Structures are given as structure tokens and as C-alpha cells.
């Protein structure tokens, strides 16, 4: 038997109110939140070890398949690496010489020597499987010194920044998500007036787009794009990607560049969280 009309109407209205509340809540939290609630933090802390186990399992299976598939490639790569290794000693000596020369030049110019970034190594323990958001979870949280907005990198380049932190894990917003934007410049020219903004490339999953570049900007395919340090979230000098092509925007006033990200977003296993230099903000 159906519920009385009045009761049904009341239930329908309350249901509609819940849906409207959810829409408002999503709008309110769409650009990120300052802090996680206690319940969220507890859930994330409880789930992180489980995610870690499954991620390791996945990685083992994936690596096994990849190893079998890439056996031939590995053999070729091995031969090439042996050759490269033979040249490494010479290169290392040259590198040392250049480093010393660089140090001397910096001292001469009176620049403050920048030390390397302080890094927190972390393992990726989960990825968002939906096609809407590009986030991942790492096994380092506030307990290990991770804080919201810290940059996340691999040895190849910038990956994203910390979106939220719980005690034992953190969520990383990848560069390929539609939400983050990084102030960036061309490493070759380093012209201060040619700072652009790097964001995800609409319609091209996995690629990035550098926008708001002046039309006369000195940029060409193959150029390396690095973070400019403006905006305060990403430290200066992190490699973001490489220019694939350039073009004019729809109004013909500005230029844009399509970028191939430096980091391989499909194979993120180990990453580093960059702890900002305390003096960096003052520069």
C-alpha cells in the first residue's frame, strides 16, 4: 500500500532538499578546502594501509606483465646503458668541474646560493579511477611533515601539489586535473615578461597547455618549461614539461603552447614532496 499523500510529499521535499544541499556543498568545496574534518581524517587514516596493500599487489602484477612484455626492450636498453655507463665517469668529472665553476660564478655575482630542496620520499598508494578528477593518494601525511599545497615531484619533473593531508596519507592533485594552474616560464629564454600559466589541456587527457603568453614570446617546440615560483605554491625551477607546438589563442592576442608533461603520469610509483625553503617566500 502506498504511504499517505502528505507523508509522501514530505519525504519527496526532504529528498529534494538533500539533493540541493549536496549541490551547494559541492559548489562550496569545488576549489578545495582548508582542512579535513575529523571523520574524513579518520576514514583516510583507516583506509590508507588497505590501499597500500592493494597498490603493492597491483604493482607486482603490473610489473610482472610489463617485465614479460618488455623483455626484449630491456635487453637492448641494457646494452645501451652499458655503453652509457662507460661514458659516465668522464661526464661525472665534467659535472664536478661545472658545479665548481657554477658555484664560483654565483659567489662572484653575489647571488645567494640555492641549496637543493628538502624532499620527503613517498609511495603512491591509490589513484582516482574516475575520468573526472586526476588525484592520487600517497603514504605520507602530517606525521611525516607533509603540509597542504606542498609541491610533489618525481625525478622527471613536477607532478602536482598536496590537496589534503591526513595523519598517515595525503591526497595529491595532479597537474593534469582541471583545477590546478602553475605559473611558468620558458627555461631557455627566462624572460620575466613571458610568464604563462600551465593547466590541463582541454580535450587532450594527459597533456598540458601553457596559456596567457604574449604573442611575441620567445617559445618554440622542444623548449623546456619550468615553474616560475610566482603564486607561492610551486617553488621556482621545477621542470613542468616540454613544448610540442605553439599557436595563437582564439582572439589572436595571446599565444599558447601544448606541452608534454615531464613526469610520466601513467607510471607514478615513487614521488617526492618538496618542503619549501623557509627563506624562499622572502626572495
Amino acid at each position, binding site marked *: *500500500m502506498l504511504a499517505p499523500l502528505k507523508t509522501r510529499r514530505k519525504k519527496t521535499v526532504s*529528498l529534494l532538499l538533500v539533493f540541493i*544541499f*549536496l*549541490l551547494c556543498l559541492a559548489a562550496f568545496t569545488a576549489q578545495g578546502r582548508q582542512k579535513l574534518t575529523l571523520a574524513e581524517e579518520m576514514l583516510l587514516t583507516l583506509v590508507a594501509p588497505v590501499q597500500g596493500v592493494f597498490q603493492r*599487489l*597491483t604493482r607486482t602484477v*603490473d610489473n610482472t606483465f610489463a617485465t614479460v612484455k618488455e623483455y626484449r626492450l630491456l635487453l637492448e636498453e641494457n646494452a645501451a646503458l652499458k655503453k652509457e655507463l662507460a661514458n659516465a665517469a668522464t661526464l661525472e668529472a665534467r659535472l664536478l668541474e661545472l658545479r665548481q665553476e657554477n658555484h664560483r660564478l654565483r659567489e662572484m655575482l653575489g647571488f645567494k646560493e640555492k641549496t637543493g630542496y628538502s624532499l620527503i620520499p613517498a609511495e603512491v598508494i591509490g589513484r582516482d579511477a574516475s575520468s573526472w578528477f586526476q588525484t592520487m593518494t600517497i603514504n605520507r601525511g602530517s606525521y611525516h611533515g607533509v603540509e597542504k599545497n606542498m609541491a610533489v615531484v618525481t625525478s622527471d619533473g613536477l607532478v602536482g601539489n598536496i590537496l589534503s593531508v591526513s595523519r598517515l596519507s595525503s591526497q595529491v592533485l595532479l597537474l593534469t586535473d582541471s583545477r590546478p594552474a602553475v605559473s611558468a616560464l620558458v627555461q631557455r629564454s627566462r624572460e620575466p615578461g613571458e610568464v604563462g600559466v600551465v593547466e590541463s589541456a582541454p580535450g587532450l*587527457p*594527459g597533456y598540458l597547455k601553457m596559456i596567457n603568453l604574449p604573442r611575441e614570446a620567445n617559445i618554440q617546440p622542444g623548449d623546456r618549461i619550468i615553474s616560475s615560483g610566482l603564486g607561492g605554491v610551486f617553488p621556482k625551477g621545477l621542470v613542468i614539461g616540454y613544448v610540442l607546438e605553439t599557436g595563437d589563442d582564439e582572439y589572436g592576442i595571446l599565444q599558447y603552447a601544448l606541452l608534454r608533461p615531464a613526469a610520466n603520469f601513467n607510471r607514478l610509483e615513487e614521488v617526492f614532496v618538496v618542503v619549501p625553503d623557509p627563506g624562499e617566500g622572502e626572495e
Partner: protein
Amino acid sequence: MGILVISGLFILSLVLQGSVLALAGTGGIHPDLLLVVVVALALLSDGKRGTLLGFTAGLFQDVLTAAPLGFFTFGKMLAGLLAGTLAREVYRDYLPVPLMVISALTLLNETVAYFLMELYFSPALQLTDYLRAFALPRLLMHVLVMAFLYPYLLRAQRRGLFFAEPENDGDGWF
């Protein structure tokens, strides 16, 4: 007991779809295991419970994937509500029924997600392109997952693992 089992099932689904199932997907498209579980459980229940199941599962997903709070909750809750409401009208023991329901609700869920995305961000693709490139492959994956999963969930529910038998009609939403 049922609450614990269902919560565990939700978390397991989320962890699996963020790890192991990522290997099963192609071209960055993975099945939304959580949606399949919500729809299956809602079909074994009623509108009210289906709504609550969708709400809880969506909230878990929002928290664990750092999505805006309410984004996945909205779609999952709607799917749970509709599947639960349909549960009274269909013959749930007949496997093609959940397969048809998951097909329809996958399209609905993807469309809702698209419009929410349009509301809060700017989606990269047109709706039709998105449905063709992402929603249809995901629909096929969901049908396969549902065909595999539903008989187990049905059997578990017959043993009373999730909740007591669906409440009478008067307790539904409509």
C-alpha cells in the same frame, strides 16, 4: 553487522577500483565498481535504503578521492534512489533485470557527473563525445561486473548478510 559488511564492501570497492581495476581498464577508462555495488544492493532493498546506500557510498568516494564533497554523492544517491524504487516493480532474481538497470543508471550517472562538472568546472568534451568515449565503454564494463557480482550479492542477501527483507511499500520514498 549489515552496516559493517556494507561499509567494508564500499571501501573494498573504492580501493579495488583505484588499484587493481585500473589495470583492467583501457585508455584511462575503468569500471566504477562502487556504482555497480550501490545499484545491486539497492535492487535487493528499497528506495529508502537505496538512497542511504548511495549517499554513504558517494560520500566515501568524495572523501577518498578528494573530489568536491557532494559530487559523487549526488550521482550515487540518485542511482540508489532509482534502483531502490525500481526494486518493488521488477523481478530481481532474473539476472537481465539488474543488467538493464545498471546500463540505464550508468548513463544517468555519467550524464549527471557531466552536468555537475559543467556547473563547477569546465568539461573538456561535449556531452555526446564524452558519452561515446567514456560512458559507453564504462557501461559495457559495468554490465560485465554486474553479471559476475549480482548472483553473489543476491545469495548473500538471501542469507540476510546485508539487511532485513525490504520494508513494506509504505516506507518507500514514493
